[in-house]
Every structure is written in C-alpha cells, then in structure tokens.
C-alpha cells in the first residue's frame, strides 16, 4: 500500500487496483469546521482532476477533485451524519470514497508524503 498526495490537498491510498481517497489534514484545517460533505454515489465514473465531492463549511463550499480516474466502489456514509469526522481524522476515518483505478499511470506525478510536506511548508 502506498499513499500519494495532490497539490489540491487530496490524498489517495493505493491497494492493488483499488484506492481510498480523502482530503489532507492541512486541507481540513484550512476549511475550518465542516458542516456537510457530499460524497459520490457508488458506480460514479470519476475523471482525474475533476470534481468528485463537495465539502462545506459555514461560509464556503469547496470541490474535492479525484486524484485519478476510476469508478466509485464505496462511499463513506458516516460523513453524512458526522461531517466533523473529516476535521478530527481527515487522513483516517474521514476518508471520502473508494474507487477502482482506471489507469495506474495517472499515479505518476502525484507527490509522496515527503514531497507533500515540503509543498505545504512552502505555502505558508
């Protein structure tokens, strides 16, 4: 299993040809308290870099983009009742959806944990 990151602050954990996606702890801190998370329905075909989910704080709605293309196999239903899970455990229990990866080549160019840390450090 390997975890990658995007410049838009999504993380993706790859396990064979399937993967789990969420937003990073840095992202949740920037958003503040989340009040609503809209995750994609099972079966949705997602395209790399296109909208996959929406997160809402009180005064902002932000899109979450899919790090890779693929088909959604499972959505995190717990977020519907408890969007705060993303604030408390963004990179764990607050995952958004699982998908089957359409093209493993799309993982090239994503950051590993170290690169992402450097990237975030450069933002402040």
């Amino acid at each position, binding site marked *: 299993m390997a975890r990658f990151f995007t410049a838009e602050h999504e993380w993706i954990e790859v396990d064979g040809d399937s993967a789990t996606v969420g937003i990073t702890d840095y992202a949740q801190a920037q958003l503040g308290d989340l*009040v*609503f998370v809209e995750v994609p329905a099972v079966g949705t075909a997602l395209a790399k870099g296109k909208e996959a989910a929406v997160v*809402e*704080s*009180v*005064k*902002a*709605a932000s899109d979450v983009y899919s790090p890779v293309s693929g088909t959604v196999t499972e959505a995190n239903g717990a977020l519907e009742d408890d969007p705060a899970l993303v604030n408390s455990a963004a990179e764990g229990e607050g995952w958004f959806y699982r998908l089957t990866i359409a093209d493993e080549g799309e993982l090239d160019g994503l950051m590993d944990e170290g690169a992402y840390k450097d990237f975030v450090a450069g933002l402040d």
Partner: protein
Amino acid sequence: MRYLPLTDPDRTAMLEVIGASSIDALFADVPEAARLTGPIEGLPVHAGEAAVERHMARLAARNLSAAEAPFFLGAGAYRHHIPASVDHLIQRGEFLTAYTPYQPEIAQGTLQMLFEFQTQVARLFGCDVANASMYDGSTAAWEAVVMARRITKRSRVLLADGLHPHYVSTMATMARFTGDAIVYAPPKLAASCDEDALVVRIDEDTSCVVVQYPDILGRLPDLEAIAEAAHQSGALLIAVVTEPVSLGAIRSPGELGADVVVGEGQALGVGLQFGGPYLGLFATREKFVRQMPGRLTGETVDAEGKRSFVLTLSTREQHIRRERATSNICTNSGLCALAFSVHLTLLGEKGLRALAAENHRLACLAADRLGKVPGVELVNTSFFNEFALRLNGDARKAVRALADRGLLAGVSLGRLYPDQPELGGGLLVAVTETADEEDIDSLAAGLEDVLA
C-alpha cells in the same frame, strides 16, 4: 431638501478634509463626454410633502378600489380583511428599515420571526420544512421545478391544466432558456379535474407534475392519486396553493403526498396591492433541504448557550456558490412574510378554521344564488371560495360592463386564456369574508342585467 441632512457649510468642510475642490470633482472618473453638468433638463425639480401626496392621491382616485365596490376577483390574488395590528406591526422601523439578518447578534427579531414563519408555513402545507419565503407564488413554482430537476436529473415537466396561466407562462419562459420541456394544455370548462388524463402522461423522463390546489377554476384535484402515480414513475409532485386560507378547510397537500408545496401567501396579511409585492411560499420534505432554494433560518445557540436564530445552509446560495448556486435569488420577501406571520398568529388555528368556514359558507351561498341567474350555469361540483360560471355570452364584456356600473364581478377566463375562444363564457368568482349577502345580490342582479 428634507431627506438630506448635510448643509452647505458641512459640505465645504468635508471637501476640505477630502482635499477636493467640489463635489463634481469627486466624479472625475466619469468620462467627460458622458458627465452631466447639471440637473437633467425637462424633469420636474424637488417638491414638498404636500405636493407629492396630492399628486399621488389624484392618481389613486382614478382607480376603483375593492373597498368601493362589491368585489369578487380572485384568480391567484385574494382580498381578505387584514387586522389593523398587522399593518401597525410591519411599520415598526426595526422591521421595516432593517436589512437581511446577516448579523444575527442584532437581528434576532427578524430571525425569530422567520423561524416562526417557516414553522407556520410547514404546518399549513403539511410539510417538514419551509424556507424564509421567495418573490411570489409564480417564481416559487418555477424554483420548485428547478429543484425537481436537480433531484431527479430529469427535465420533462408536466403541468396540470388547472395551473394558473400566468404561472404556466412564467415557467414556459424560463424553460425556454434552461432546456426543460414543459407539457401543458389549457383546461376545459368542466365540473371536475381530469386526473386520469394527467396521470397517463407521466413517464420515465418526467421530473415533476405540477398541480394547483384548489385549481384555477376553483376545483379540488385528487392529489393523492396524482402523487401515487408520480412516485411510481420516480417523479415528484409539486402542489401549488394560491389561496392559503383554503388550507383552514381542506387537507394539506403534504398530507396528500406532495413532495414540494409552493404557494402565494398574499392572501394572509399582504393585501392585493395591484399584484405585488407578494409572498412566495416554499415547503418540502426534510430529505430535500439541501436542494432547496432561498434563505433558511435555523435554530442554534450563542456563546453563552442562549437559544438564537441564524441564517443557515447558505452554501446553497449565490453569494458563495456563484454560478453553481441552487438559484440566483438573493432576497426573500421578508416584510410580506412578517405580515403573513402576524396575520396567521392573530388567527391561530381557531381563527383560520373560522375564516375558512366563513369563506366557504359565503361561496356556497353565492354559487347557488348566481347559478339561478338566467344565462348563468355553475361549473364546479366542488370548490373552496372560488368557482367558475359559464355565461351565455362573452364574460369579458360582461365584466367590463359591470365594472362600468361600479361592480367588480370576477375574472373572465377570456382575459386569462385569450387563445381559447371556447373558454370565453367562463367567469371566475371568488367570495371571501369581505363580501356580504347584499354584495352577492348585487352581483346576481348585475349579471342578470348585462346578460339579458
């Protein structure tokens, strides 16, 4: 000038602080070619309060107001007696001259009122939740259609023939630009609604069925049957209520299976006002809350734990979502919502039921009396406070002739359906508690005269 507090010495002193030579100099960014150098010529100059009032009063006197004549118009706008305290309360400056309650710490008055209003509307309509109001019934109805498209991801819109033609027109206009397909045919002057004819047209592409209740002819469609058919095809039932007082007598659309109930709230508290401002009502099921258009007020607490109210779920709205908002609407009809809410609070359950019963009693009386006029036939088998008559002549001409005699007889279907000559004999008559038996007799006598 009475509304401008600055004096010339003030202006001079302020210009000095700013470092400008004159007020005109502050407009230097306006291209010189377009800049006006003095008041626009040919227009009147300022006038005192007495002069303006005289002018407006003269214009008002050129109208025949409902107070001055036996009055029977409805068709989407109803005249009810508005208690004096309603107008007093909505003129309190703290309501009248407040803005949208974006600073909840100093706007609890408006916010709590809206929360109460939302609850009143939800209960009246038999729904889980309601919003803080919209422009009017027709625009609220269109917003419901847009919401149905968002929820069902379909875009074929089936309108019942009894939907107010202005509402139909509003929707058809908008649909032309949004690509929704509107399916509609005007009504026949028949005793009851043809639900079967509507239901068979629901298909797998239908996002919603829009049904007015009571309908434009005052008839009472069987919402339960339509809801069942719509739901079987995965479509939503949108009920449109243009006379909310009716819901003090008849079952609510929510209770009968409607998924969205919209309406025109003008009948309670707002008044006729020649068509506006009115009050759009919008209510739906809890599960559709995040798909709802318009402002919403919610309950919460403040930092000391005190119950407080605040505008909420605003991420649906244009100022955050911009081109992805649920609607471009950025206002509600706050003061009209207040008038509605105050009136409904004064009535209460007991008063609303009594008001509805009195409307129905007088309408039954009028229907029987008018149906006996030679050349007049009552169309409806059931109704609340409005029904259709079939005249043996052109109803539009009859209405004009009666108006010339100081009698405001009703709304001719010829005015509402100019393209449907077979409806030309149709006359809609609304009877509220503001009419008395003498008025009904006058109308009967007048009709007898003009039809003779």
